[in-house]
């Protein structure tokens, strides 16, 4: 009897395998969480609609238009003055925030337009740098505005809007970037 009992006890000692499933699930969830699918990032733009013959483009007075011209050699002309890419941001900031103070810059933020004109042979890289500078200027303005509304940054403000509601900052400081038809390069 005693021998039989001893044998049975030894048979019953088994490693529990029921938790293996949980371990597998934990592994699966770990890899699901740590895997990131790369998100496409870029500079967003809205192209102007195809012009139709009946309606002429809205007139923009010269002072409200900040003209940026980039030629095939990569030289930048800012309001007809030779310049470089690094100066664009500051110029856009003064142009948009002018509010009619300086006669050379815009009447009001809602009327301010930044126009970028390139040549067919302009390097794409330089065009992106220019566009980047212009957008960074607007981001700077929006960030300042968001901080005055009590948000740490414009991005925070915008994510707060996701639930609905109007983007007051964007309405007050609309980014109006126009891409002019390039000259045919030769």
């Amino acid at each position, binding site marked *: 009897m005693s021998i039989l009992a001893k044998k049975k006890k030894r048979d019953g000692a088994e490693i529990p395998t029921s938790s293996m499933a949980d371990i597998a699930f934990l592994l699966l969830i770990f890899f699901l969480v740590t895997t990131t699918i790369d998100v496409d*990032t*870029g500079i967003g*733009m*809205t192209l102007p609609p195809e012009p139709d013959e009946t309606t002429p483009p809205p007139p923009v007075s010269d002072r409200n238009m900040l003209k940026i011209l980039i030629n095939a050699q990569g030289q930048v002309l800012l309001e007809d003055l030779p310049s470089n890419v690094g100066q664009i941001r500051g110029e856009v900031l003064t142009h948009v925030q002018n509010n009619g103070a300086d006669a050379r810059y815009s009447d009001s933020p809602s009327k301010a337009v930044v126009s970028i004109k390139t040549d*067919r042979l302009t*390097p794409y890289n330089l065009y992106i740098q220019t566009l980047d500078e212009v957008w960074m200027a607007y981001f700077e303005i929006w960030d300042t505005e968001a901080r005055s509304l009590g948000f740490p940054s414009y991005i925070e403000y915008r994510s707060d809007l996701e639930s609905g509601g109007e983007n007051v900052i964007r309405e007050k400081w609309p980014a109006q970037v126009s891409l002019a038809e390039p000259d045919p390069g030769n």
Partner: protein
Amino acid sequence: MAHFTKKSKAKPEISTASLPDIIFMLLIFFMVTTVLREQEVQVRTTLPEAEALTKIEQKRYVSYVWMGPEKLPMNRFGDTKVQIDDAVIEDLTNIRSIMYRKLSEQPRLIVSLRVDEESEMGVVTDVQGELRKAGTLRISYSSRRDISNI
């Protein structure tokens, strides 16, 4: 005899030891049968660097247009070509109908332009002109984050 009756009284249990194996089998089955739609890019697109980036969260709205020098064998590069989906577009006026069809399927379409940083503006302008004619006005110049400035 007494020994046998005792054994039959023991509570029968279903072995769960093979459950993980079953689940792994299922997982592997689905991994093998799932086909990710992979597009082979036939042009070189080294994206430019920028700071003022926005993320495109809704991936299903995005349609890509690649522009850059065509990849040739022996690590050489040819002329600048435009690629949409799987095909290199030789006649740029075809972009209009392609994009018009895509727009009718997805009215909130965003066209992501993945342009090689060494390209010239000419081809970009031509493609943009076609996009305007098709009515796909929401675009994004795909760029990398400038690492040196962080």
